[in-house]
């Protein structure tokens, strides 16, 4: 009897997981279908791009600046005398460009952008504003979801690109001001193994982060139930799922794009 209950709970969880997967797939399909409704999403896309992207520049730059400083000091601390100090520049450039700027910015924006979207859409959902839009023959996916997802996908690389510049610049300033390193030496190290691919890799990765974070925020908001508590749970789940998915995607891109690649 007890084992039967165990098997039932297992089936219930599996069913819920598949149901969630299917719901997510259906949500993605509806979002994709809304792309054709340009007249609905295009007018509001720039508004969301400004809100989600331009509004995130200060926090992204702030994070990148301190990351660059800490990375330069950490590199100088880690390098022994066997490693030339100009490799600080190499480490700062490679790490900021390929990993820290996209991931840290993505995690920060998961909290700022994802939670904001989930809260907005969740509130609209629990207050039946979305139902009202549907009554007015507005496609909520074209009006609410797609512009946000597009804004996130486009603006995340913009924010991350600026974060890269700010991070490397902060690393350079920290190296010159706090370490026994000249500008020439720092950029000698930074240029040593620099490839255009590094920037490409970071920007594409950040675009995927932007798409996932906004998509999760929209999904959780649109599925929110039960009033303010449901909205809060939706926001919380958005941040958690977004953070998890950012790390999963980070590993995914590393495996797909870096594994076996010869520089």
């Amino acid at each position, binding site marked *: 009897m007890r084992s039967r209950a165990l098997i039932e709970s297992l089936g219930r969880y599996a069913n819920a997981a598949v149901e969630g997967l299917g719901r997510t797939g259906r949500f993605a399909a509806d979002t994709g279908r809304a792309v054709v409704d340009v007249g609905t999403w295009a007018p509001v896309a720039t508004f969301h791009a400004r809100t989600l992207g331009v509004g995130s520049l200060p926090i992204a730059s702030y994070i990148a600046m301190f990351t660059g400083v800490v990375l330069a000091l950490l590199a100088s601390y880690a390098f022994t005398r066997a490693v*030339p100090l100009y490799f600080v520049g190499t480490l700062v450039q490679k790490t900021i460009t390929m990993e820290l700027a996209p991931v840290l910015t993505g995690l920060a924006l998961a909290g700022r952008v994802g939670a904001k979207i989930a809260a907005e859409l969740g509130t609209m959902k629990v207050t039946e504003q979305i139902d009202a839009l549907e009554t007015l023959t507005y496609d909520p996916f074209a009006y609410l979801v797609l512009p946000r997802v597009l804004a996130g996908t486009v603006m995340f690389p913009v924010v991350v690109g600026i974060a890269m510049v700010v991070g490397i610049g902060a690393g350079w300033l920290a190296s010159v001001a706090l370490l026994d390193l000249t500008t020439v030496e720092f950029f000698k190290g930074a240029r040593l193994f620099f490839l255009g691919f590094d920037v490409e890799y970071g920007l594409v990765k950040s675009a995927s982060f932007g798409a996932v974070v906004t998509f999760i925020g929209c999904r959780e908001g649109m599925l929110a139930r039960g009033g303010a508590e449901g909205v809060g749970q939706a926001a919380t789940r958005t941040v958690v799922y977004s953070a998890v998915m950012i790390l999963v995607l980070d590993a995914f891109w590393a495996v797909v794009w870096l594994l076996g690649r010869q520089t």
Partner: protein
Amino acid sequence: MKRANDFVVGLTILGAIVAIAAGIVFMKQADIGQRKTQFIARFRDVGSARPGTPVVIRGVRSGRIESMALADGGWVEVRMSLDPAVRLPENPVVLLNEASVFGEWQATVLGRDGVPRDADVQRQLADAAQGGTVLPGATLPDIAKLTAVAGRIAGDVASVAERFEVAFDDRAATELRGSIRNFSDLSSVLARTVREQSRNLDSVSGDVRAGVQSLAHAAGQLERVVTRFDSSTSRGEVDKVVSDAADAARQLRQASRNLLTISEQVGKSQERLHSFIVGSDSIVTRINRGQGSLGLLVNDSSLYRNTDSLLKEFRSFLADLQRNPKRYIQVRIF
């Protein structure tokens, strides 16, 4: 409001694109719109060089590798660009080598005279020099190859160690233990011998020390003699001695000549003495025979007695003369 959003978003995107593009151009040190001098070199292997690898002339970065492609005959053709002001050295060749131990590579352009005297490099250059207008190139071994060689050496050492391990079985260990024991005994005997010999050595060393002291003393005396001799030499005494010796020798020669003369005279005297003795002998013989006056005097006792009484009377006469000289002697001046 919408136009403001569009402007801000567009400006942000534009700014980000400009910042990223400028960063990439800066990092890659790309020269936009500047003409470059280009040339091609060919290699059998390009190691870890890749597009963007710096081209260095006499230690100065002067360009970069633009592209590389596989070519016929097993070659890799590498296209490089140089700053327009840079001139290639005479008879140029290109070496691909590591710029540091951290995996940085560079293409070094240098004259054929400056190529390292490495047989493999020379062979690569001679092989690649048959390419017409294409510059010959060679690739120097990188750290990985060197470490691969070191790895092979380590493998050989490991195999030797493995063989040693195989050969070093229980029997070998037993024999080794016995050898060590024998060596221990031998070392004990050796230590004892050394102790005994050390005592002998002590006495020998004492003798040697005394001998050395004697030698030192003799050396001191010799030194003093030499010093004295040296001072004598410096004062001219030796010359005087030699001169005196010469005089002495001369006098000795004179004396020997005199001695020779004397000996000749002695010889003559001896002959005369011999004839005198012979004559004396005949006289003595005649005396003994009682011939002649002396023979009669020696052999006739009455003559002796007469002579003796004569002597007695003469002695009494002398005594009387001493007592009464005036009896016999009268001195008158006028």
